C-alpha cells in the first residue's frame, strides 16, 4: 500500500510511547535478561541499551507486534550477542566441547557405563508434580548457574526460548555435532548436580 492512511499512522504512533517505556517494561526486560545471562549488572545495561536502540529505530516499528514484543526482540538480540562473546572467549581458552575430561567423570572411559558417584538414583521427582517443589527449583537454578557459559547459553536458547537447533548453531558458531555434545553434557551435569544437592 503506497498511500498512507493518516488514521492508521496515528494508531501506529500511539503504539509506541517511549514516555511510558521505563514504567511499563523496564522490570520485565530486566528480569528477562537477568535470568538468561546470570548477571544483574549486565542485565541492567542491556535494558538501557535496548531502550536507546529502540528509540533510534522507532520509526521502523510497524505495529505488527506489540510494543512489548518488539522491545523484547531487540533485547533478545543483545542477549545473543552476550552469549556469542562469552562462547568465543571460551573457545580461545579451554574448548568446552572437544575434551573428554568432563565426560569420563560421568561415564567409564572403556565401557561407557555410569560411574558410581554420578549414577542416577530415583529422587522422587520423576513425575511432573515435582514441578511445584520450590526447593527443587532453587537447586536447579543454582546448578544452572554453575554451568560453563557456552553450555548455559545453549541450554537456555533450546529449552527456555525454544529456538531451533539450526539458529543456535548459527548464532553461536557451533557445528551440529558440537551442539549435541553440549546438550548431552549439560543435562548429565545438571542432573548430577541436582542429585548431589537434593539428597
Amino acid at each position, binding site marked *: 500500500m503506497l498511500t498512507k492512511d493518516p488514521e492508521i499512522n496515528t494508531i501506529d504512533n500511539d503504539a509506541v510511547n517511549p514516555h511510558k517505556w521505563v514504567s511499563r517494561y523496564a522490570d520485565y526486560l530486566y528480569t528477562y535478561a537477568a535470568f538468561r545471562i546470570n548477571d544483574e549488572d549486565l542485565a541492567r545495561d542491556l535494558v538501557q541499551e535496548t531502550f536507546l536502540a529502540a528509540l533510534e529505530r522507532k520509526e521502523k516499528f510497524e505495529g505488527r507486534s506489540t510494543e512489548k514484543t518488539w522491545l523484547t526482540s531487540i533485547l533478545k538480540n543483545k542477549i545473543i550477542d552476550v552469549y556469542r562473546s562469552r562462547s568465543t572467549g571460551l573457545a580461545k581458552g579451554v574448548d568446552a566441547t572437544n575434551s573428554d575430561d568432563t565426560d569420563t567423570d560421568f561415564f567409564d572411559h572403556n565401557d561407557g*557405563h555410569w560411574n558410581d558417584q554420578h549414577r542416577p538414583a530415583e529422587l522422587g521427582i520423576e513425575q511432573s508434580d515435582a514441578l511445584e517443589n520450590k526447593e*527443587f527449583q532453587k537447586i*536447579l537454578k543454582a546448578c544452572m548457574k554453575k554451568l560453563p557459559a557456552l553450555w548455559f547459553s545453549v541450554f537456555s536458547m533450546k*529449552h527456555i526460548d525454544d529456538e531451533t537447533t539450526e539458529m543456535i548453531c548459527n548464532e553461536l558458531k557451533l557445528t551440529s555435532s558440537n551442539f549435541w555434545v553440549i546438550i548431552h553434557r549439560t*543435562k548429565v551435569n545438571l542432573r548430577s548436580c541436582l542429585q548431589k544437592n537434593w539428597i
Partner: protein
Amino acid sequence: MKELSEAELKKIAYNCRKATFLIEKQQIGKITLREKMELKIHLTGCSICVTFMQQSAVINQMARKLFASDHRELKLDEGFKEQLQKRINNQLDKN
C-alpha cells in the same frame, strides 16, 4: 537395515553414555530408526537410564517453568529507572 551383531548388541546394552546421548537427542530432535532400536534395547535392560530419561524430562519442564516470563519479576532500582526515563525523554526532545 543391517542386523546388529551380538557384539554390537552387547556394546549398546552396556553403553549408558551412548544411551543418554540418544535420549537427549530424541527429546529435542530426531534420531534414526536404528538409533531408536538401539535405545530401546538399552532401556529394556537398564533401569538407571530409564530414571535418567524421566529426570531429564522433568528438568526440561522445570527450567521452562522457572524462566517463564510471568514468574517472579525482579525490580530495577527506582533511581536507575528515573535516570533512564530522563535519558529517553532527552533523546526524544532532540528529535
